[in-house]
């Protein structure tokens, strides 16, 4: 492969070439940086690019590779990080005006883990402000465009990470997923995105949105890469008391193209009203493929509490957010508006000018749901229904190894199309929200196109069943070619 096309490589392809010393990390990093310089003007996936830091690190890694006997799968490989994950010395904005100049003093645990593998961090990606949104249009800086059709959204909130991976502006990226923010943009950009089981990956250094729902996950060009990134980032962390002390398997171990006898259920509630016909057709074809590959498909699965998930999510997530975002008062860090007569007014104005409309909307919603007189009707009720949703999944997974659904009921929509109607925007996450509510893992993989617009398939499993999800995803990927298609960008 010519040196100016190296940005197209996957992790495992680049690793092989690095190991054989056929390419250097510097060449690979330069190719990625050149690609970014060429197409960022169209895609707008990145908030910050740290060219000098990246090239310096790549050079260091190259020196290391010269003498190393073994290198880890991520050694020397460039990556982009969603701008909600703290990077020491590199501005971390959450795509918000209130953190526009915030420079973290420490690395998130996932960043420490990537650095331990000698990964090369190239920059930070755009997102919906504080990860609140489904289109990346709620970034305070600029919207990201979908590489498959620049007039359309890449999904969100990790839209920058997904668009960058799809457009080969990086070899892989990290995102975060509170209600679908890794999987929905992965589906809309035709890349692979995994939301791990709650507690599988440390949240330390992930700027909090809704702490009981947030998880960090990989966004990659194929399923093998997803497993490799999971190997690097999963595991217990004493700095995150909600991370679980279970051993981490080698996620590549189950990457075998064989799903004979696996029991896969198709919950009918996810084939919702308003789902586009081409998405339905693509999913039916994909499920048929899984059957051909030997899986036992049951189309008669019902999860009747699914219809309450949207309401549960939009009570719980904003409630947690309203508490988490109380810390932005303009005193210790971040934007501060001091042109007011007293300290309360100062706080109010700091938050008025520092937060965007969607963030304010959710703070308002959450504050209302938690306020005296409404707590029982909204927050407590939602927490009880959450229990029922989780129980329903538990029961389903006694019978099935995995459940398969669309990731998004619709293909990427036009920029601006849903911006003025928050309820319509919220509905675009209808298939992904229940997974976070139940804390289970789910992966989205490319499953076809409707007039050149990507369609994603979501595979979900019981807690800590990431290996089975990866195995099904891998078998499907090996039997199809969707993941090899590239957007007609240039």
């Amino acid at each position, binding site marked *: 492969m010519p040196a100016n096309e190296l940005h197209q490589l996957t992790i495992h392809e680049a690793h092989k070439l690095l190991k054989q010393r056929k390419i250097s990390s510097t060449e690979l990093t330069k190719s990625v940086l050149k690609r970014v310089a060429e197409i960022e003007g169209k895609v707008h996936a990145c908030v910050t690019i740290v060219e000098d830091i990246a090239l310096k690190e790549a050079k260091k890694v190259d020196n290391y590779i010269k003498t190393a006997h073994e290198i880890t799968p991520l050694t020397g490989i460039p990556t982009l990080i969603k701008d909600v994950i703290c990077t020491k010395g590199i501005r971390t904005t959450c795509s918000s005006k209130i953190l526009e100049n915030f420079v973290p003093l420490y690395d998130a645990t996932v960043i420490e883990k990537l650095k331990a593998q000698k990964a090369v961090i190239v920059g930070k990606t755009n997102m919906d402000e504080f990860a609140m949104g489904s289109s990346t249009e709620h970034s305070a800086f600029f919207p990201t465009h979908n590489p498959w059709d620049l007039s359309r959204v890449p999904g969100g909130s990790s839209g920058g990470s997904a668009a960058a991976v799809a457009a080969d502006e990086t070899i892989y990226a990290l995102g975060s997923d509170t209600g679908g923010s890794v999987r929905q943009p992965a589906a809309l950009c035709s890349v692979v995105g995994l939301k791990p089981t709650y507690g599988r990956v440390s949240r330390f250094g992930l700027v909090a949105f809704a702490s009981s729902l947030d998880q960090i996950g990989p966004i990659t060009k194929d399923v093998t890469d997803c497993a490799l990134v999971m190997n690097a980032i999963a595991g217990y962390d004493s700095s995150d008391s909600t991370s679980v002390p279970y051993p981490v398997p080698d996620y590549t171990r189950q990457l075998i193209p064989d799903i004979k006898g696996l029991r896969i259920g198709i919950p009918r509630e996810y084939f919702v009203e308003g789902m586009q016909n081409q998405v339905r057709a693509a999913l039916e074809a994909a499920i048929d493929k899984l059957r051909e590959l030997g899986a036992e498909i049951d189309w008669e699965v019902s999860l009747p509490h699914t219809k309450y998930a949207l*309401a549960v999510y939009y009570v719980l997530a904003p409630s947690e957010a309203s508490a988490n975002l109380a810390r932005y008062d303009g005193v210790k*860090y971040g934007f501060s508006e001091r042109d007011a007569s007293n300290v309360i007014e100062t706080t109010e104005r700091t938050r008025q000018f520092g937060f965007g409309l969607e963030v304010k909307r959710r703070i308002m919603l959450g504050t209302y749901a938690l306020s005296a007189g409404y707590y029982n009707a909204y927050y407590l*009720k939602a927490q009880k229904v959450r*229990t029922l949703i989780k129980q329903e999944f538990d029961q389903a997974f006694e019978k099935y190894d995995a459940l398969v659904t669309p990731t998004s009921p619709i293909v990427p929509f036009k920029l601006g199309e849903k911006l003025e109607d928050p309820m319509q925007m919220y509905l675009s996450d209808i298939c992904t929200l229940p997974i976070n509510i139940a804390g289970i893992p789910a992966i989205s993989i490319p499953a076809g196109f409707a007039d050149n617009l990507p369609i994603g398939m979501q595979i979900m499993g019981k*807690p800590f069943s990431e290996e089975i999800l990866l195995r099904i995803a891998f078998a499907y990927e090996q039997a199809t070619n969707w993941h090899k298609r590239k957007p007609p960008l240039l």
Partner: protein
Amino acid sequence: MKLSYEQVRHIAWLARLGLSEEEVGKFSLQLSNILENFEILKQVDTANVPPATHTIPLQNVFRKDDVAESYSQAEILSNAPKQEGNCFKVQAILE
């Protein structure tokens, strides 16, 4: 459930969130619409259902109380919008 301008202003005050008049108007409509969509939860019988808190069965999480290095005053203040004499500077709280 319809939220009045007065209620919107009250919630904003609880959240210490300044809003323009235009935002108050917008939120009165939009939040009312969103809250209407929450009404569906009333259909669910939750009489004997315990509320969920976390989805993974972890209880009483402890770690060793190890002494570790922390940050210098200068580092902690490095992101402060205003500082004076090694302190965060805020407006007077008491007159």
